[in-house]
Each structure stands twice: as C-alpha cells, then as structure tokens.
C-alpha cells in the first residue's frame, strides 16, 4: 500500500520499516498484489521478517491472507497472478515471477510451508518416511536413501511422534489428524528453512492437539532461528505463537505492530472491532456480545478507499480516499483517518461494555 504515488522515497515504505534490508532480514515483501481477471484480491502488501522473528498475519475469510502466503511460495492457483517484489535473503532472484526451475530449488530448502488440512496434505499411497526423505533427497541435503531415511526417523522423533522407527514405514491413513500435521511439519523443517510459512496450521485440530502442534512449530522455528509467517483467523492463537502481527482486511494490511501493542491499544477501527467481537467474556448489560455490523463482502468486491468503511461506524467522506499508512514504530503502523484515540482502553469496542478484566 504505497502511501503516495511511486515517487515517494523507498525508505518510508508502507509498513513503516526502518532502514530496508537490515543485515538479518530474511523476507522482504514490497508492494505485493494478487489479481484475477482484473479483480484485485491483495493490494500493496509490504512487510519484512527477520531471522528468528515470528510474524502473524490475521484476517477473516476473503481478507487475502492465504493468497499472500501462497504468492510468497509461488504456489498461487491457476489464473491468479502476483505482482510486486518478494525477496528472500540468500536467494539472488525475486520470487514473484521466478520460473519453475528456480522456484523449485528454493521451495522446501529456503522456504517451507505447512498447510491447513492435514487429512489431505500427504500422499495416501506413499509411506510417510519416503515423503519426508523426498524433500531431503530432492535438495541433496542427504546423499542417499539410507541416510535420508535415518534423518526422517530423527525428524519424526523431533516432532514428537510415538515410535518413529515404526512410523517411518506406516501410511498416512494410519495416523490421526494431529500426527499427520506433525509429519507435514517434519517435512517443512527437514532442510532447516530460512522462512517457515504456516497457513492456519492448527485450525482443523482439537484444542489439546493444537497446543502440542503450536508448541512444536514455535520450538522448531526458534531452534533453527528461522523466520516465520503465521496465518490464522484466531486472535488467541496468533497472540500465543507470534511476536508481531499484521491485520489484513479486504486484501490490504490495515494495521501492524507488536502483539502486545496491537491487541491492547488497537488503532484501526477494524482491529478494535475484531478484538471486541472475539472477546466472548465482554458482554453488554443484556449479555450480548460486541459485533461488527454487516458481513464481509466477497473477495475483490470491497469498497474503494478504506476497505472497511462500509462497516465502520466512524466512516466519513474522507474515508472514500485511500487512508495513508501512519507508521508508529520500526515495524508498526495503521491506515485509518479516524483511528482509535491513543489512550483507548483495551476491549472498549462498544461504549456500553464494562471492563472485562477476567483472567
């Protein structure tokens, strides 16, 4: 989301990055867009992730968060096109329009991904061990099949699977959802990727299983000092797993910053509404929850200017033009003409709400 027409100096880039390309920057995304047949699904997304930094990307359905992840991996479905620039440390070329030959060298080696649905993510007719060994053999991080297999057993142990020696010869249908997601994680972490992209990795899992997988993801990334881009719609999960968060709505980043900052002193109206709506403990006098009026428009059909204005109680004519990005720190800022007052207290989305405060 370029604040002003392109002439603006790169320094004041949209996501309020400090000096660009700091030494330990792993992923640098500039002006990323995704279009299909003329309709814009993702627009002007800018952010950088440092080594070892865990960044969350939160948004509802149709916000474009999954498309952002997929365009970083270069795995957009047929008919969708990515624009802008995605650079990865240690990789000479830009990832957006790279050809298959170059991208296949990067995927699974520099960047790895964990998907949402574990039940269909693995090849049902191939042993789990071979599917893990494959990512090692394809990138020649292991010389031959025997050592790749041994590494697979070790990886299975790392992700906490019971009896990894037997598991390596089992088929996907012999594992539960949670166990399969751990196999996918093992595959992703196999080559110690510089960047791990997780697209709603625990949405399909039960609470207890989710806790274990989240723990594995965070530890896996920390052990390898890998950067992580974590996509989810669940505020609590992102707050638990990530240090910094970007809020997306209508294909644009409307606010970003440290988790503590964004979730206690939200500035963008949408972020505030989202926090209010997701807090099931804050109820008005009649016991009703705070809500955001209206419903999410279909992908690509958001209003011009500020994409949230058709549901924002504070929208004015000014919101018809695109709000500028107001940087509030090295990696944080928001894009709203009528932001929540600096001193706004957490969870006061609807005036009638009393302080929730429950532990």
């Amino acid at each position, binding site marked *: 989301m370029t604040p002003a027409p392109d002439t603006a100096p790169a320094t004041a880039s949209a996501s309020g990055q400090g000096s660009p390309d700091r030494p330990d920057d792993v992923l640098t995304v500039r002006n990323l867009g995704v279009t299909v047949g003329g309709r814009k699904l993702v627009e002007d997304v800018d952010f950088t992730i440092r080594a070892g930094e865990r960044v969350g990307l939160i948004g509802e359905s149709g916000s474009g968060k999954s498309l952002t992840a997929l365009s970083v*991996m270069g*795995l957009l479905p*047929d008919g969708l096109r990515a624009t802008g620039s995605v650079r990865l440390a240690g990789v000479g070329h830009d990832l957006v329009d790279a050809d*298959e*030959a170059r991208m*296949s*060298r*990067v*995927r*699974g*080696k520099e960047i*790895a*991904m964990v*998907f949402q*649905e574990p039940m*269909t*993510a*693995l*090849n*049902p*007719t*191939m042993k789990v061990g071979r599917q893990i060994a*494959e*990512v090692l053999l*394809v*990138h020649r991080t292991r010389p031959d099949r025997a050592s790749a297999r041994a590494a697979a057993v070790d990886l299975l142990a790392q992700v906490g699977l019971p009896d990894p020696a037997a598991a390596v010869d*089992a*088929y996907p*249908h*012999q*594992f*539960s959802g949670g*166990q399969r997601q751990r196999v*996918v994680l093992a*595959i*992703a972490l196999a080559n110690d990727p510089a960047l791990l992209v997780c697209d709603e990795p625990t949405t399909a899992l039960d609470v207890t299983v989710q806790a274990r997988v989240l723990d594995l993801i965070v530890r896996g990334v920390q052990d390898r000092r890998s950067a992580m881009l974590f996509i989810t719609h669940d505020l609590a999960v992102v707050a638990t797993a990530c240090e910094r968060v970007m809020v997306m709505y209508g294909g644009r980043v409307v606010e970003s910053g440290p988790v503590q900052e964004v979730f206690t002193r939200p500035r963008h109206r949408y972020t505030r509404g989202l926090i209010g709506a997701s807090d099931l403990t804050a109820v008005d006098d009649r016991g009703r929850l705070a809500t955001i009026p209206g419903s999410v428009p279909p992908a690509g059909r958001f209003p011009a200017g500020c994409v949230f204005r058709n549901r924002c109680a504070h929208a004015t004519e000014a919101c018809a033009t695109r709000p500028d990005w107001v940087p509030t720190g090295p990696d944080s800022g928001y894009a709203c003409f009528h932001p929540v007052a600096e001193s706004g207290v957490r969870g006061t989305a609807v005036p009638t709400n009393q302080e929730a405060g429950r532990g």
Partner: protein
Amino acid sequence: MIVRLVKRIAVLLVSLVVSSVLVFAFMAVLPGDPARVALGTSASETAVAQLREQFGLDRPFVAQYLSWVHGLVTFDPGTSYISHTEIGPQLADRLQVTLWLVGAGMVLACILAVPMGILMAVRHRRPSGLILSALSQAGVAVPAFLAGILLITVFAVGLGWLPANGWTPPAQDPVLFLKQLVLPVLSLGMVQGAVLTRYIRSAVLDVLREDYLRTARAKGLRPMRALVRHGLRNAAVPVVTVLALQLATLLVGAVVIERVFVIPGLGSLLLDSVSNRDLIVVQDVVMIIAMAVLLVNFLVDTIYLMIDPRLRGGSS
C-alpha cells in the same frame, strides 16, 4: 487384506453361478427348436426326436443345466448340435484369436492414451491441450468399423502394403499373422485409445487438484516431477477401472472389427451360432464372456489393493 480378498473371491463365485443360471434360462426361452434347425425343416419328426434325445434336450431343465455346468468346469463343453464337433477346441482357438486382437488393440490404446491423456490434463488451459482434446473427441466419435473400412481402402486395396483381411494362426505363418494383425489392431486401438485418453485426462485433472500435489510442489518438486512421483499412481485407480470395462466390452465388441477384417474371433462365433441356433455354443460363448468380465473385475479389485494401501486394512 486377506479378508478383503476372500470376500472378493466369494462374490466372484456367486456371480459366476448366478450368471450361468441367467444364461441358461435365457437360452431356454430362445424360440426355434435347435434340433429342428440342425436337421433342416423337412426332417421327419422321428429324426428330430432322435437328435433331441442324443443331445439330451428331452431331459428336465435342471439335469440339462447341471450337465452343462459340469461340462464347463471340466473343460469339456460338449459337442455342437450343428457341427457335431467338439466345442472345446473351437472355443479355445476363437478365444485365443480374440485375445490377440483385443490384447494388442488395448496395448496400442494405452501407448496412445497415457501420454496424450497426461499431456491434455497438464496443458489443460493452453491451446495445445484444447487441440488434443478436440482430436480425442473426434477419435471417440468415429465408429470403429468405419475406421477399419477406411484403413483397408487406403493401406490394403489402395497401397497394397497389407492384406485386406484374413487370419492365420501365428504358429502357421508368423509374418503373415503379424501383417494381418496390423490394420485391425490399428482401427481397434485408435478408437479405444481416444476413449481411454478422455478418462486419463479427467483422472489426471482430478489428481492435479489434490492437496498432496501442492505439498509435493512445496517440497521443491517441479510440476511434471510431482505429477509423476505422486499423481500418476493415484490416478491409476480410476483408469484401471475404465481399462477393465473396455477390455470386458471388447471381448464381444470386437466382433465388428472381426467382421470387417474376416477374423474368426469369439464375437463372430457368437454371431454365427446365434443365427444357426447352435444353442450349446451360444451358451458357452456367453458364459466365457461373463466369466472373463467377472475375472477382469476381480483382477481390478486386487490391483486396487496393490495401489491403495488404505484398502489393506490395519488402521492406526
């Protein structure tokens, strides 16, 4: 795994018995007394009765059915009313002819269809994919015998490269046997190939949409490599089903090609015996075809077991 196999075998046996009863009942309904047709219409009543007795046609149904089944099981399917000759060897020859024709035809179909089908699926949006798709649609639309007639007119009568028709057992004259096989196999193979291509295309398209293909791409496999290592094995299941179906229908379906190229196959034997009311032969041919179809289905099921581990039981 064994349980599934035992169940499948049981289903196979029951189906065989039931289809044999069906076939026998159908034959009994067929009008036209076989003995009378065999002897010609002006034969005397006594002669007809004597022949009926000789063929056991006067015995009660169940007895006739049992002796027929006994004959089938012990590979001695009795003698034909019309030709008074042993049916067994005749069936064996005809079956061998048809298996050669259909087998080679299906092999050619696979050689054509597998690469074309995959190509059409992979280039599914691009013009080359559309052209191939149109071509295969055209291939499906041409009746097999028309293809045969055109091939004869051009290559046999026109250019004289190949014999127009006829069949020579391979042992008798291998070169002539192969020459006579080319055109029929081509016309059979091309048409069946076009049909198979369409199924392979849709099976591969389905597989390309699977999540684990995307996982393979995320691992760093290039699209074609991902398809070959992960996609094809899973796409094989629906394709194997269609192949089995085609093989089954061709056993008698090839009669059209047999008629154009004058090949004494199973289908032609069936046609001739039906017009000569040679009931015992008709019964045996229909039974062989039914057995072949059921056997093919059984083989397909076992192939499923090999391809898809989920069916092998033993869950987490």
